[in-house]
């Protein structure tokens, strides 16, 4: 887990509460969590190179401390299938966000469709760090199919939490959707609960949403961490 504290300390020293997605994913990788391959690029050439390396389709996301809710600003473009599309998206970002402080563009291997889950953490005034698991995606707050546990949690606790959501049947393969690997999912819950617990002096809230579960596995495709 070496290096996580350093990343968090640097962000704090910049008087920032929002950890940018590429930084959050770096932290996740350091926790041993597998995230889709991605690179932060500064130039169009680097973007093209990264896309070619990962293979199409790719996703491009603008990284800026001024653009936290990326989808609200159309700062996430999915399913880019060619060098041309990567180039024009890069240009479009640079035009539209010319007046904001841009840290770079995150080029990421696109993850195929699947079931969208969420794992998040929060600092509860009564219980301290708690972890949430449930049905993810943009509708998460409307659906509210989630379950909480104390951080840090154990694998048996996480496995039980998984069985407590109302939509648990979706995890077992529902109308042709692939089965979710619960062992892997519970590992992910445990690791994130450990992250929130170990770094409770720094981390206030965290959303790993969505985590896409498909035939290839579990993929945290967006990560948001808010510091204290």
């Amino acid at each position, binding site marked *: 887990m070496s290096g996580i504290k350093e990343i968090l300390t640097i962000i704090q020293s910049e008087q920032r*509460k*929002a950890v940018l997605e590429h930084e959050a994913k770096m932290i996740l990788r350091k926790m041993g969590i597998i995230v889709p391959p991605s690179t932060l690029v500064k130039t169009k050439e680097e973007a093209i190179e990264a896309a070619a390396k990962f293979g199409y389709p790719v996703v491009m996301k603008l990284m800026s401390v001024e653009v*936290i809710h990326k989808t609200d600003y159309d700062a996430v473009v999915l399913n880019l299938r060619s060098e041309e599309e990567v180039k024009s998206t890069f240009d479009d970002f640079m035009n539209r966000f010319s007046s904001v402080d841009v840290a770079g563009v995150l080029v990421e291997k696109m993850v195929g469709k699947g079931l969208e889950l*969420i794992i*998040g*953490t*929060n600092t*509860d005034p*009564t*219980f*301290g760090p*708690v972890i*949430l698991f*449930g049905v993810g995606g943009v509708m*998460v*707050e409307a659906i*509210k199919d*989630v*379950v*909480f*546990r*104390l951080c840090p949690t154990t694998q048996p*606790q996480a496995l*039980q*939490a998984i069985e*407590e959501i109302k939509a648990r049947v979706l995890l077992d393969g529902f109308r042709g959707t692939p089965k979710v690997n619960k062992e892997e999912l519970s590992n992910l819950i445990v690791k994130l609960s450990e992250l929130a617990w170990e770094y409770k002096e720094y981390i*206030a*809230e*965290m*959303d790993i*949403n969505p985590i896409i579960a498909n035939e290839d596995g579990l993929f945290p495709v967006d990560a*948001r961490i*808010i510091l204290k």
Partner: protein
Amino acid sequence: MKARLEKFFNAKTFCVVGASTTPNKPGNVVAYNFVNFFPGKTYLVNPKGGELYNNKLYKSVLEIDDSIDAACIIVPARYAPLALQECGKKGIKNIIVTTGGFSEIGDEGIKLQQQMLDIMKEFEITVIGPNCLGLYSPALGYDTMFLPDSKLKRPTNGPVSIFTQSGAFGAAFIDQLSRLGSGKWVSKFISYGNASDINETDSLEYVGQDPDTKMIIIYLEDFKNGREFMQKAREISLKKPIMGIKANRTETGAKAGASHTAALSANDVIVDDLLNDAGIIRVITWDQLEDCVLVFGTQPLPLGNNVAIVTDGGGAGVMASDMVSDCGLTLAKFSAEVQKKLDDTFPSFYSTGNPIDITGSATAEDYRIALESVYDDPNVDSIVNICIPVIPDLDIEEYIKITKELAKRKEKPFVTALVGGEEADYATAELLKDDLPAFESPGRAVRALGMLTEYTKYLQKHSVDPKSIKMED
């Protein structure tokens, strides 16, 4: 480490500070309780001096020529800091402060409570309260409940320990238990009020390790030490059932945060999930608590989910079946042998499926056959015995006798619902006299079984045999 409350309950010398000579005043009641029931030595303190209940009234604790293990301070709030300080000087380390008028009344009280905290720190005193009923244990003759027995009836010794944030809740619940069945229910009662020191987590720790406590009932409005409470509860709930009310459910909604997780973090949603994870059976209404005492206190845990229902009324059976499904239980499928016996014995207009409906033609003998058959069926984990006693051929005395015999076997949980008027009330009272669970509606009876089964499922999930949970040694 020994639980901090142990030193209170293990006291051999006890001092009542503020013993009053005016009948029924709090300081008078507590003095009476200790002088009459406490097996250790009781000292009474009142600055006026004199005598009370043939015991000397010391003008100050400092005059007592003995070491004091624990004390109860029952003086007006403004005198409490001074009384506490004198106890501190005397070297008393365990003190119950029942008096109200502290943090619960606002600024002035908060100041007073802070003064108390400073004194506690200086003299290393452990305090229960202020603003509480303190402690009650019938077996130990320990009773700081300052309401006289003529008003607040005391239940006698039994398997249940209770701890409560609200004193009024505690008083009412204690009074209720005194008239529930034999009244033999209570092991330890802890009312910690403002929780200036001893709180819910200390209370849980104590009753968790107390060998005389077989089940735990809680009433909380908030947590002083929520994280540790949940961690301790996870361990204790594998050895004895914990159930109760966490009120104040709408207290705080989720704070708008930057994340979805923060937005979904409503206080009660988290509390509910954590209680569930810790194996605490959460009930919402007051009546459910008494039902908990009746079923957990008197019946074994079911070993599975399968319920048999016997009824003389179709509607009652249907409603009970609905509640079976609402509680996550299932209707048992009788074994071939039992099914054949029922089919062969009963007339064709009786319904011999589950629920077994022995109709308005039922006799006490029909009840006996139906109930004994399902009780002995290995496919049945628990039994609901429903009776609407208005039917013409039912001998109620005989029915009561049969029901008592089965409910006392205690191999499987057996609950009874008696629906109706005078005769139903009479039969209910007869069963309750023997501490057998009887309810006035099928739904309530099934719901009680549901709580028992919920606990079984929790234990089984954690690889604990439900048979290891016993109310008696």
